[in-house]
């Protein structure tokens, strides 16, 4: 029976990680429902971007308050995870503070984890205040109602609870060490939790062990829960920010992709030798749909973008259309894409791996033409995103579908395009008058 805790721990670990692996494979399957993207070029630059933007958080600090607080939580998350390694090994082997053999290094590590844990608690509290007391505008846009708002707060609560458990565990441990309890050899330094320890004074060793063990178990169980919560939350960015910045756009922001399918058509039209009446070859592939009306029409990088979005709303708060009260919100474009992709994924799961038409699509059922037409293509959203998400590319792909597949452009734009077609300018002026300005005084 003495190995029961070890067995329970291993089972918990296997279930927790197993479920996570399952979620990751579902995530991967959904992302690769997207079309191919040419992102294999310029690997050195891509690594550099990932190191600078994701690892180095370079774009977070554009907004200094949120940026610095975020870096604290991020560094805390990454570094305190070293402690999780020890917790896992202790759990499996039934040891206590296995890394204590590191001596002064261990003291330093535990000490810094504690300081970080406290800083994380402070940051999380400030984040909560920003969302719930100060009520920053960007957290209160229509797309944030309901689950997204709850999700944002839940994440903060989980992080807070995990940090409090971590410090409680250390505090009780410290107290036990002071009392010379069995199994609790003096190890680690406790610059923060030593302030909690006085609360435990007068308690019996068995009570303290119970507190320490409970905090230890709930802490690791909480971490495994959080790991699996990610997939159902906006919080996937802690993992996906890395691939997303790696696969981010490398060309100038103003450069929009030229559609190859259109290039092929245009080349044929311009080719004097092409037979305009030629029948397509019998085995000719069905021509590509122009633009995007559903998630499968987008590239897998755009779908990765959607899962990476953590709904911070920096894009929306910089968007000129949104600032002036239009319906367009770049964040909503990303959230809608993700929600529709999830729906399509569930549809595939329910139909033995095959997507059954559900009479819905991203266009109209999620994103309306009114939103799409409000975009000025100014790239403010792309610039604002701290992890290289490109909402503009989705907007443009959907406009292409509206115009080239549905001829559903606003009348004014049809007039503009008619003018370009007929006289080479967006206004109804004759091309032959193009140089008249040089003769006017």
């Amino acid at each position, binding site marked *: 029976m003495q190995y029961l805790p070890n067995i329970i721990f291993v089972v918990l670990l296997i279930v927790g990680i197993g479920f996570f692996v399952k979620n990751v494979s579902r995530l991967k399957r959904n992302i690769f429902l997207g079309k191919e993207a040419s992102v294999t070029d310029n690997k050195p630059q891509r690594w550099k971007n990932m190191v600078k933007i994701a690892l180095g958080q370079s774009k977070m600090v554009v907004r200094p308050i949120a940026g610095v607080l975020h870096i604290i939580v991020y560094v805390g998350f990454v570094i305190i995870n070293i402690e999780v390694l020890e917790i896992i090994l202790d759990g499996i082997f039934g040891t206590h503070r296995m890394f204590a053999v590191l001596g002064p290094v261990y003291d330093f590590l535990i000490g810094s984890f504690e300081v970080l844990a406290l800083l994380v608690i402070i940051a999380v509290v400030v984040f909560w205040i920003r969302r719930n007391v100060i009520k920053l505008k960007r957290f209160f846009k229509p797309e944030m109602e309901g689950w997204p708002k709850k999700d944002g707060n839940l994440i903060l609560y989980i992080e807070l609870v995990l940090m409090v458990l971590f410090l409680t565990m250390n505090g009780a441990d410290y107290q036990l060490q002071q009392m010379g309890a069995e199994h609790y050899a003096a190890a680690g330094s406790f610059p923060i939790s030593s302030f909690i320890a006085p609360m435990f004074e007068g308690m019996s060793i068995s009570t303290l062990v119970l507190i320490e063990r409970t905090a230890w178990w709930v802490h690791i169980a909480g971490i495994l829960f959080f790991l699996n919560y990610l997939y159902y939350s906006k919080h996937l960015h802690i993992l996906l920010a890395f691939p997303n910045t790696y696969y981010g756009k490398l060309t100038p922001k103003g450069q929009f992709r030229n559609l190859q399918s259109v290039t092929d058509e*245009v080349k044929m039209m311009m080719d004097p030798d092409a037979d305009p009446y030629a029948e397509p070859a019998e085995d000719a592939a069905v021509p590509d749909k122009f633009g995007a009306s559903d998630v499968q029409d987008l590239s897998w990088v755009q779908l990765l973008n959607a899962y990476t979005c953590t709904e911070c709303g920096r894009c929306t708060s910089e968007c000129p259309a949104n600032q002036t009260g239009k319906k367009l919100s770049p964040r909503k474009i990303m959230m809608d894409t993700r929600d529709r992709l999830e729906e399509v994924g569930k549809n595939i799961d329910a139909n033995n791996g095959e997507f059954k038409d559900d009479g819905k699509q991203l266009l109209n059922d999620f994103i309306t033409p009114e939103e799409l037409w409000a975009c000025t293509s100014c790239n*403010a959203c792309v610039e604002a995103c701290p992890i290289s998400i490109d909402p503009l590319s989705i907007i443009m792909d959907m406009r292409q579908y509206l115009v080239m597949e549905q001829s559903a452009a606003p009348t004014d734009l049809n*007039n*503009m395009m008619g003018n370009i077609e007929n006289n*080479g*300018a967006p206004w109804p002026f004759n091309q032959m008058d193009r*140089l008249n300005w040089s003769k006017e005084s």
Partner: protein
Amino acid sequence: MASELKVPTMAEFFASGTVPEVLFWVGCAGSFDDRAKKITKAFVKILNKANVSFAVLGTEESCTGDPAKRAGNEFLFQMQAVTNIEVLNAYEIKKIVTACPHCFNTIKNEYPGLGGNYEVVHHTQFLKDLLNDGRISMEGGNFKGKRITFHDPCYLGRANGVYEAPRDLIRKLDAELIEMKSCKQRGLCCGAGGAQMFKEPEKGDKDVNIERTEQALETKPEIIAAGCPFCNTMMTDGVKNKEKEGDVQVMDIAEMIATAEDL
């Protein structure tokens, strides 16, 4: 006032068997829009003064296709692009300067994939080079000490990372350059991009150009400097809407230089 403009065409250069230093891509706004034509002329005056050997395509120029592409009509864009590229390649054009950031962006970034490879510069970059090479001199003239704020065109700034050339020119005019609260990477759009210029805005609380004009007016400028014919129109409309046209001028940087040099 200065003498008549010298505006040679590519066809004339070709006929005489010579090549100009640079092609000036005028653009649709620069050719047809009354306000933008003034910018075109101001830029040509500077080119004439500096004895730059340049040419325009004139009636052989056609829309780059930018508004069609941003409106979602990739077909029309590519038809325009390949037609223009055929003309440009036939004349063996190497370098292009334009006063329109939309033409600049499209030719620079989107034409290479379709067979059009040129060195493309915005007119503020070109003017800066002329200045550095000593081909034009700039005295502040009547701009000395004036409060000037610069509105970054999205397709010059964020889209292509050109922030300093226009600012350097303003500083050269001995003017006091004051930045708006959102500028450079975070500059707010004027509201014309993405083919918005050619349509009514969607329903909202406010027009984008009014919002941007308010930001500009907060700096208490005497001049709002622009580097794009569409921004120019939007900001001019914004200033009129605020009934400030008596106090605040909206000017392209080329116009400012031409005025300072009394061209």
